[in-house]
């Protein structure tokens, strides 16, 4: 229970077209993440699915039923917001139960569902408190609890971790992943953070300027990016893009090589260059080179390496992991 079909969804604010024809199929139980730079329309798309914005054209089906004229409360969805959006005047318990109360659910049923959700999220000690008395992480758990209690067909998350600090973000990310495994519910999640996308998703939808660039599993996007945009967006540090003519290759416009697919040597290699800057991260060492052949090049080495600025080094890319892109920035397969 909980599939979603989007067919050529368009959304325009005045003359400004934010979504330019989105087609998407989400299967029951999938964890789908919309990722893209700010302003790419991912939040708008989520709001269209929720019914908070009307699509200018196109069709939305949840479990096969057309939703265009269904109000948000009747779509069988629940949404978790970046700013938590808890009702300030209600206790944690009432916050979680309000949706059911509005839908006319019996009080005993509401109580059992709230109890179940609160124990799942270890919120039991806070049920009688108001949102103002909770920490950021607790508030976000209440917001997630409010979604669980509704037992929706679709969970919608709008950048739920953006307001949390780094440690809490990792912890809450694990909690959401665990929740998805336990509930086996369909979840749609919006983020601009590619780490969240890679770690949580079954399926990632990369959006740019209101259109879908590529849909695929995290590893598909990493190994087989469909175009330059996806190649640059997924993976950190960013993929190196080298004009093909500089390397004397024909049949492609741009060659892409990920920083982790380049080996460094002090003695010999394909591209001679000079170290500009080194970042020591412990597990990785990121080396920035200026080479004659390629210009600026980022190289990611595993473990600790004693390179220093102004060292002369040779870089050699892994031939099997090169990405080739044509004049339209599409990948050449």
């Amino acid at each position: 229970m909980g599939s979603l079909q989007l067919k050529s969804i368009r959304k325009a604010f005045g003359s400004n077209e934010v979504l330019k024809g989105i087609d998407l199929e989400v299967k029951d139980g999938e964890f789908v993440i919309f990722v893209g730079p700010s302003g790419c329309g991912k939040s708008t798309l989520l709001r269209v699915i929720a019914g908070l914005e009307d699509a200018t054209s196109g069709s939305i089906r949840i479990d096969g039923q057309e939703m265009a004229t269904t109000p948000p409360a009747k779509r069988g969805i629940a949404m978790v917001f970046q700013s938590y959006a808890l009702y300030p005047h209600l206790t944690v318990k009432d916050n979680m139960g309000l949706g059911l109360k509005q839908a006319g659910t019996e009080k005993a049923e509401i109580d059992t569902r709230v109890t179940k959700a609160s124990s799942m999220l270890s919120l039991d000690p806070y049920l009688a408190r108001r949102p103002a008395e909770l920490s950021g992480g607790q508030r976000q758990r209440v917001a997630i609890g409010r979604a669980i209690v509704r037992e929706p067909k679709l969970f919608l998350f709008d950048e739920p971790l953006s307001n949390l600090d780094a440690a809490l973000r990792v912890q809450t990310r694990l909690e959401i992943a665990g929740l998805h495994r336990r509930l086996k519910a369909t979840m749609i999640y919006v983020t601009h953070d590619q780490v969240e996308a890679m770690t949580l998703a079954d399926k990632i939808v990369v959006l740019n300027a209101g259109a879908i660039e590529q849909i695929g599993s995290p590893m598909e996007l990493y190994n087989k990016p469909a175009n330059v945009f996806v190649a640059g967006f997924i993976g950190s540090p960013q993929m190196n893009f080298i004009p093909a003519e500089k390397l004397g290759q024909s049949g492609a416009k741009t060659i892409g090589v990920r920083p982790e697919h380049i080996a460094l040597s002090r003695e010999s290699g394909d591209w001679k260059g000079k170290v500009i800057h080194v970042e020591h991260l412990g597990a990785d060492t990121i080396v920035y080179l200026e080479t004659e052949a390629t210009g600026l090049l980022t190289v990611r080495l595993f473990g600790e390496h004693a390179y220093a600025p102004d060292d002369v080094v040779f870089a050699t890319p892994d031939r099997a992991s090169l990405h080739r892109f044509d004049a339209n920035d599409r990948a050449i397969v």
Partner: protein
Amino acid sequence: MSKARSAPVRAAFIHLALIAYTLVALFPVFLTLVNSFKSRSAIFSQPMALPTPSTFSLIGYQTVLSQGNFVGYFQNSLIVTVASIALVLLFGAMAAFALSEYRFRGNTLMGLYLALGIMIPIRLGTVAILQGMVAAGLVNTLTSLILVYTAQGLPLAIFILSEFMRTVSDDLKSAGRIDGLSEYAIFFRLVLPLVRPAMATVAVFTMIPIWNDLWFPLILAPGEGTKTVTLGAQMFIGQFVTNWNAVLSALSLAILPVMVLYVIFSRQLIRGITSGAVK
């Protein structure tokens, strides 16, 4: 360094200015209160002096309470003021919510049109208003005053409240919609409590000119049954003789209800500052 040294000096200047302003603002009130407790000759011989046992007199208050129907005037003023504030807050908040929340054709124009009233004094339309009230048979009723004051208070209320409502988190309203709250429930239960400080501000700004107004009661409702306090106090001011004891006493009494209302609203103002709802 220089900042640290100049801080106390700056603070002193700020306080000096504030104290000076407070004195200027309170002086007429002080003068009114003090002289209302003095005999007529003492008011004229030593207007600045505090009442002493020899000059103390309650004659003004006796006159006010025995002559005319001052309790009735008070009641009229209160009814007009409270009803007008209630209507201004209700309609002002609803219009402000619509203007700030919904995207519709002519939204900005409508906002400008509604704000126009801030710049054009309603008294310019007195003749037309009077004609309208005569035609509607509302002359000498409190309703006429309430209608005029509601119209007078709305522009500023809409202007202030729509600015505040724009600051209420969109996510909160969206969450309400997903939980199945109606637009009215979102307005009354989510948005209004969050803009309560602004409501209190609007209430105070609306209340004072209404309570103090002499113009419209004099023109629209001068009858004995509908006189307000300010109009009632006028009967002690004559062309040749003015009963200053009575005027000052009536004005002193008129200050009280406004004070009470002000205290109520300013309390709301403090209590209304809720935090932690969003972020």
